[in-house]
């Protein structure tokens, strides 16, 4: 049996697949010890650990350790003169008119930051040797006395030559064998010292937390007789065996949204769709990603709580528009949706737990797209009157009725998500009309058609059981390892062979790592070259098939870069502008052999033929359909609501829906 467990902020989701049978379970999360929630989910599903052959786990443990500043006690070591890197940061403010501005707090106190005399130049040559006598005399005793669980090393130019960091690591390891060490050349070997130091310090900060968590988890599993594979989801959209996380905790950050995108990609592949815009609409926010040819784009950097983390992550944009986002009118009279949310308590007004401010969910209730009797397959009854009451004030201030106000709020929520989609598409030089829209999360399929209308998208793919796509993503994630390096050089005749040599080295190292972890079988490779015009600071990644390298000349690489530059900036540089290579990312992937199949869960709910829905300024009778009862290729003509267990799809007038052979619902715009 294969099991995916995704620990979220509110709920822990479990998906189990056993010989084609799929079980889905949702239990409350247990934030203080997330593993308890995970094992509760196993219990609720009636699964014996001994029967599980493959367990994939995603959790917010690493992210929460940073957000709540509950990581390990760490020290930070920098080149002499630069112990303040983490406090200087980039000298700018994120909010330019905020007089009470505070920088994001690093995970280490200034008193725990130390220096070593040394200096390496940008080409890797040693300018000043590492002062080993001073290390032995000053640094080692200080590290021993500090009671640290981990130490982060970030020496200048370590991306160009790791020699000093390696020697320092060796000296610390010899003197203080119990101390965990994160060295910047291993964590993020790329230039820009603050971003590299931030990544390295956060890695040291979360590593002991992750180790402790996985120790407990594995011990409990072993105690229950588990003998299968245990792997952990990463933010790059792949999984790795839990053992590999013992040296790479940072890649486990933000794995939840990545799992969702992977689940969406896999589910869409069944319907032979590879170009997708996914959006995962949850309670407080919506995550948006663009998928090209079955691959989600990677971003080289992300941040948690304002602190930069230089590690490849799926390029996901988040907006504060979810089902619980509050609808309000600001002091300039403008209608707003979010970013504040009603949260889990009190939640939307219609939950009847004392909420009085209207939310997006309340707007759905008022306009009729959420039926109070059919929420969560009838498992939770909603208070429609409370939803109406909550909108009274907004309606009055807009000079309309309650239904008009709800419709307005929905349009604005749609616009917020549309802007997030434009960020990952239009702003990156991609036309959204070339993609299918794939909504998931409980609240996604209710808005998908209206979002598609705004963007000119004509096709929507709604996966079965869209509420558990993230957990499904865990089960269908490949084993993936990405390595990035800085390799700065102008494009010339030498470049292709330099790239090929680096590529071969990275390939060898990664394959050795896979072999050591017992990951055998055919491996796929992916190479992205980060290039820019000489003098620019920001690179554009250009994907190159490693097998193609021997045939590519410098001019070919330059032309591919210029094309990518044109897509984003509307120009390909003035004639004669030189192009340089800055770095590259190499990826190894071992694909999963078989993908689990998910079907819609029957709600078994009695429902009327139709219900009233407000759309486009009019009230229409929308047909009501049970998603699980829909026959293959039976066409549902809008207006209609296709109600599933964990979410409902709204099919507006002018749209048609039908289930395809892969179990997905395909919504198409007519004409």
């Amino acid at each position: 049996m294969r099991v995916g467990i995704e620990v979220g902020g509110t709920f822990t989701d479990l998906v189990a697949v056993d010989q084609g049978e799929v079980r889905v379970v949702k239990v409350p999360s247990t934030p203080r010890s997330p593993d308890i929630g995970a094992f509760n989910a196993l219990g609720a599903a009636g699964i014996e650990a001994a029967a599980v052959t493959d367990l994939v786990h995603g959790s917010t443990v690493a992210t929460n350790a940073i957000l709540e500043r509950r990581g390990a006690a760490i020290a930070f070591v920098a080149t002499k003169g630069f112990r303040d890197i983490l406090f200087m940061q980039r000298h700018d403010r994120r909010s330019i008119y905020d007089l009470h501005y505070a920088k994001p707090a690093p995970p280490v106190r200034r008193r725990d930051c130390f220096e070593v005399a040394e200096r390496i130049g940008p080409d890797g040559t040693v300018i000043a040797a590492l002062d080993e006598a001073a290390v032995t005399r000053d640094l080692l005793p200080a590290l021993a006395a500090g009671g640290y669980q981990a130490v982060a090393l970030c020496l200048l130019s370590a991306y160009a030559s790791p020699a000093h960091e390696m020697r320092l690591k060796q000296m610390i390891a010899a003197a203080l064998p119990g101390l965990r060490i994160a060295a910047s050349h291993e964590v993020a070997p790329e230039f820009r010292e603050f971003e590299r130091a931030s990544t390295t310090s956060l890695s040291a900060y979360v590593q002991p937390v992750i180790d402790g968590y996985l120790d407990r988890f594995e011990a409990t599993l072993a105690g229950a007789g588990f003998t299968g594979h245990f792997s952990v989801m990463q933010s790059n959209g792949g999984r790795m065996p839990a053992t590999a996380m013992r040296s790479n905790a940072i890649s486990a950050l933000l794995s939840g949204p990545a799992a969702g995108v992977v689940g969406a990609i896999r589910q869409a592949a069944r319907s032979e769709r590879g170009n997708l815009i996914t959006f995962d609409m949850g309670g407080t926010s919506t995550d948006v990603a663009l998928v090209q040819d079955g691959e989600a784009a990677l971003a080289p950097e992300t941040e948690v709580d304002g602190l930069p983390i230089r590690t490849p992550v799926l390029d996901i944009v988040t907006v504060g528009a979810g089902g619980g986002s509050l609808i309000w009118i600001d002091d300039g009279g403008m209608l707003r949706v979010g970013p504040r949310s009603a949260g889990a308590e009190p939640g939307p007004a219609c939950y009847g737990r004392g909420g009085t401010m209207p939310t997006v969910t309340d707007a759905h209730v008022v306009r009729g797209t959420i039926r109070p009797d059919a929420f969560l397959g009838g498992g939770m009854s909603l208070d429609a009157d409370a939803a109406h009451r909550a909108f009274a004030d907004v309606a009055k201030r807009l000079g309309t009725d309650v239904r008009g106000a709800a419709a307005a709020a929905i349009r604005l929520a749609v616009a917020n998500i549309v802007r997030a989609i434009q960020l990952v598409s239009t702003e990156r030089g991609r036309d959204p009309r070339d993609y299918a829209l794939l909504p998931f999360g409980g609240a996604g399929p209710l808005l998908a058609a209206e979002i598609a209308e705004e963007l000119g998208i004509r096709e929507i793919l709604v996966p079965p059981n869209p509420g558990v796509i993230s957990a499904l993503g865990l089960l269908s994630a490949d084993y993936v390892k990405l390595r990035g390096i800085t390799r700065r050089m102008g494009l010339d005749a030498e470049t292709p062979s330099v790239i090929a040599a680096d590529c071969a080295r990275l390939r060898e190292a990664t394959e050795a790592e896979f072999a050591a972890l017992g990951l055998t079988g055919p491996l796929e490779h992916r190479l992205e070259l980060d290039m820019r015009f000489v003098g620019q600071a920001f690179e554009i990644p250009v994907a190159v098939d490693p097998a193609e390298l021997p045939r590519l000349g410098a001019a070919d690489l330059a032309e591919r870069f210029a094309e990518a530059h044109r897509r984003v900036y509307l120009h390909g540089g003035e004639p004669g502008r030189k192009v340089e290579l800055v770095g590259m990312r190499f990826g190894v992937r071992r694909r999963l052999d078989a993908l689990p199949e998910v079907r819609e869960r029957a709600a078994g709910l009695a429902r009327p033929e139709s219900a009233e829905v407000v759309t486009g300024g009019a009230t229409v009778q929308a047909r009501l359909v049970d998603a699980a009862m829909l026959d293959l290729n039976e066409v549902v003509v809008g207006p209609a609501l296709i109600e599933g267990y964990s979410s409902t799809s709204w099919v507006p007038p002018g749209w048609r829906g039908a289930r395809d052979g892969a179990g997905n619902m395909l919504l198409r715009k007519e004409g």
Partner: protein
Amino acid sequence: MQLDPVEYAILSQSVIAAAREMGVKLVRSAYSTILREARDGSAALLDARGGTVAQAELIPMQLGSIGRVFQPCAAMFPPETLEEGDFLVINDPYSGGQHLQDVFFFHPIFHEGEVIGFGASVAHHLDIGGGSPGLNAGARDLYAEGLIIPPMKVNMARDWHGGGFERLLRANVRVPQQTMGDFDAQIAANNIGVLRIQELARRYGVEKVRATMAGLQDYSERRMRAAIAEVPDGTYWGEAMLDDDGMGSGPLPVRAAVTVSGDSITVDFEGTAPQVGSNLNAPFASVISATVSCLKAALTSPDIPFNDGALRPIAVKAPKGTLLNPNHPAPVRARMISVSRAWNAVMQAISQAVPEKVIAQGYDTTTAFCLSWLGPAGWSVYLEVYGGGYGAGIGNDGCDAVDNPLSNCSNTPVEAMDQDFSFFRVVDYALRPDSCGIGARRGGAGFSRSYRILVDGPIVSHYSDRFTGRSSGIFGGGPGASGSCQVLRDGEVINLRSKDAFNLKAGDLITINLGGGGGYGVPSERSAALIERDLEDGIITKELAENWAK
């Protein structure tokens, strides 16, 4: 035309998003460290009359004046006379600009043959010619500060990329690879803005786009007025001092009288020092930016879009011939220092009306620090803009080592400098102990950066302030530390003035020290735990900790 509120909300957010995208692409496709690392540039969308509608929030100082500098261009080249491919360029401080390094580009947005607005961008250029690379500390008039571009109409096909105007610019700048590349980044940003507005006009109709542009300005005005109305009526006075004119003048006062009347404010800088012979003079457009930035930051919520509407409730006056409204052709390169004192004077004035909203003075000095070297491969110019410690507020310590309220430049990574410059190396970058002003809340700490010079012949030129004066604390808080700049040569310390230029030799160690911010409230009200924490972290020394409340 009357827009329905939802369409208005959607369209206005789309216009703001377009301006933000312009700003991102301006920085990300730029070439010089001053634009790509320090992000010293801004972008905006204007309506057809040049009213600013939405801006990318990068540099507060540049945001107030984009619309203003457009007017002389429009007067000379009315929008209806423009053709496809035309754009307008200007940098003249005496035609509404700020200083010559800030070059403005305006690209008309055509919809069905008609101009419905402009994409605008401004970037601080590393070198724009003039008497010295990057920064001419000794300039005694505008001509010595760089190439003056009056309002110009330029055509992309005819005048750029090999055309006459581009070749003229290229011939007059010392680092054309960077400066010309940054101009291309401005053009890219404007083209993005033009494209996005055209898309909106096609999707929603041009009339709705026009109505949104007007509506967004009215919206900012309404919210500004709502915030001003909560401030008690009255006239409040404030004053702040510059060290000197850089030529030994002694302290120069900037004085502000702030009159709050209902939902409007008038600020009069009567009593400010006369203009000076050095580059501290501030063109009037920059004074408006500084004044409105201060009032917006102190009185309103940060989410109000900064556009022409936000300027409407505020009237600013400065007598002609003073530091804040100089006569042509006084040099203006270092205008940020004078307008920072204008910012301080306005803040001090309103501290009497809204004490809980203001902050103490920070170092609040733009320190422009330029190292240049004519090597075998031509000029190599490094320019960095430094802030210092922030002033403390009623509920928070001042931020350590951060750029000034009127600016928002990032630092250049040391590893980027190591790659790009062979004639110097940064060897130290650290917070300065005991540089914060004491108080119930302490000011932000200042910092220092040291550069080892590796060849003979480079020049350092810089301007700064508060080398003799200090940032004042407020409501009992103490002052922050002063700044300084020293060259250590063969064991001897050479102190440079706050506005200076100096020839360097191999082996020199040059250190720029940036000052701290003032404290808020009486020091004895600070908790012992916070003092102890700062002591452990080396923000303050034992001596200061022991004398904190004495």
